[in-house]
């Protein structure tokens, strides 16, 4: 059904078939971008990019780019819980963010991701301190490169934005992803590597409390490998946490100067 609230083009359009070049065999110790299996992509984090929002953050890792804006605490609609606040997460892929153009309407994948972001962040946010209020977290994926990596980056970005907004949390949640490729745990797989994996793992972790808020694993994987994967992800989360702290400190310094 054509969307009457937007300028419409032709109803159906498809991507052309692209001849892919010769595929190099996957080497877990030296991947396409030179990383070994236990390294995450270099991370760039910045807060305060959306001046209109109460808090915002931008994360860039490899080709992945995510922006997040937080509005709140603001007044809830009626009929909300009087004892604690509400956290509302909205996850959206931009139309140009993946190889195939995304529609503007929310699809099931985006709804699922919104729920996952909520599940990852809600345990950390002190909603009991903001009764009758709502915190709205809007995540916009500008460029996606790896589904699980994208989700992990979104959670990290949202946690940073919440911190930037001054919403009290028990700890800033960091999230990382891993893929299982041929018996190896490969951290932070990008889009091409994801096509080779036979399982994926995403862990959201609170480093100061050493607690996992959310974990999601897909695929048929042995328990030993799962444990290895979790350890790798938790390590990665600690590294991400350092970058988050630096970025927040930098933004405070900017704010003071």
């Amino acid at each position: 059904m054509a969307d009457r609230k937007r300028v419409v083009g032709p109803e159906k359009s498809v991507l052309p078939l692209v001849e892919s070049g010769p595929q190099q065999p996957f080497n877990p110790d030296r991947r396409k971008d030179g990383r070994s299996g236990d390294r995450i992509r270099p991370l760039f984090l910045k807060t305060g990019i959306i001046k209109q929002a109460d808090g915002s953050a931008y994360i860039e890792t490899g080709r992945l780019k995510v922006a997040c804006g937080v509005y709140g605490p603001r007044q809830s609609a009626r009929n909300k819980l009087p004892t604690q606040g509400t956290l509302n997460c909205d996850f959206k892929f931009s139309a140009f963010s993946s190889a195939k153009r995304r529609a503007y309407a929310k699809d099931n994948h985006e709804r699922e991701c919104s729920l996952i972001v909520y599940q990852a962040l809600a345990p950390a946010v002190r909603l009991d301190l903001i009764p009758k209020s709502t915190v709205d977290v809007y995540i916009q994926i500008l460029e996606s490169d790896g589904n699980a990596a994208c989700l992990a980056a979104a959670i990290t970005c949202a946690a940073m934005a919440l911190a930037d907004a001054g919403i009290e949390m028990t700890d800033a949640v960091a999230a990382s992803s891993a893929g299982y490729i041929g018996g190896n745990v490969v951290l932070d797989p990008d889009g091409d590597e994801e096509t080779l994996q036979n399982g994926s793992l995403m862990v959201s972790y609170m480093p100061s409390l050493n607690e996992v808020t959310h974990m999601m694993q897909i695929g048929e994987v042995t328990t030993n490998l799962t444990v290895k994967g979790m350890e790798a992800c938790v390590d990665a989360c600690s590294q991400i946490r350092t970058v988050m702290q630096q970025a927040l400190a930098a933004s405070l310094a900017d704010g003071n100067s």
Partner: protein
Amino acid sequence: MRPDKRNTNDIRVTHTALGQLHRADGSGRYQFGDSSVLCGIYGPAAIGLRDEKLDRAVIEVSFSAAHGKSTTRERLHERLLRSTFETAILSALHPRTGIRITCQTLCDDGAVLATSINATMLALMDAGIPLRSVITAVSCMVDKEGEVFLDPTALELKEAQSTHTFAFDNVSGGVVSCESTGVFTEEEYESCYDICKQGSDAIERFLRHALQKKLEKQSGLDFGKS
């Protein structure tokens, strides 16, 4: 030579009608040749608490094209209609109410925006809504040779290099709304401005005549020539 043998600064045969919708507080129909728009005004009436303004009336516009469901094109028309009449209507006289303007295009033969502005003007006068001034609109086009034609039909618009719709107010004489698309020079724009100003003065006379006829009929008096 234009297909319907008009001069370059002639507007098409105009038809006006007032008060055709009995259930509306006011209604007006305006026609430029075959382009015809019917406008109904509902208000000032009560609106929801969420939408009301404490110091003035809220103007809402709904515009429907001749065929098909409404698209972003109709949204742009609605915005232009709303902004045109928001300043003309003395909305401070009716706080906490809503005035709803509904325009339906009956037939589209070019210049629909201008037709709807004139139809809305008629309807507002029919509804007795207090206004600051009379707003009249007309459109024109510039063809590929740079010649300006007033009130083009849809057929003529196919050859347009640029199209312009102007709405003027009769108190200050300035431009209230303007929608110009295409590629044109500043000189062409100035010629269009002048030609449309003349055209809208003529339309103001039509509107005055239409309102006069209605009032004469209602009161049974003869107001004579003005």
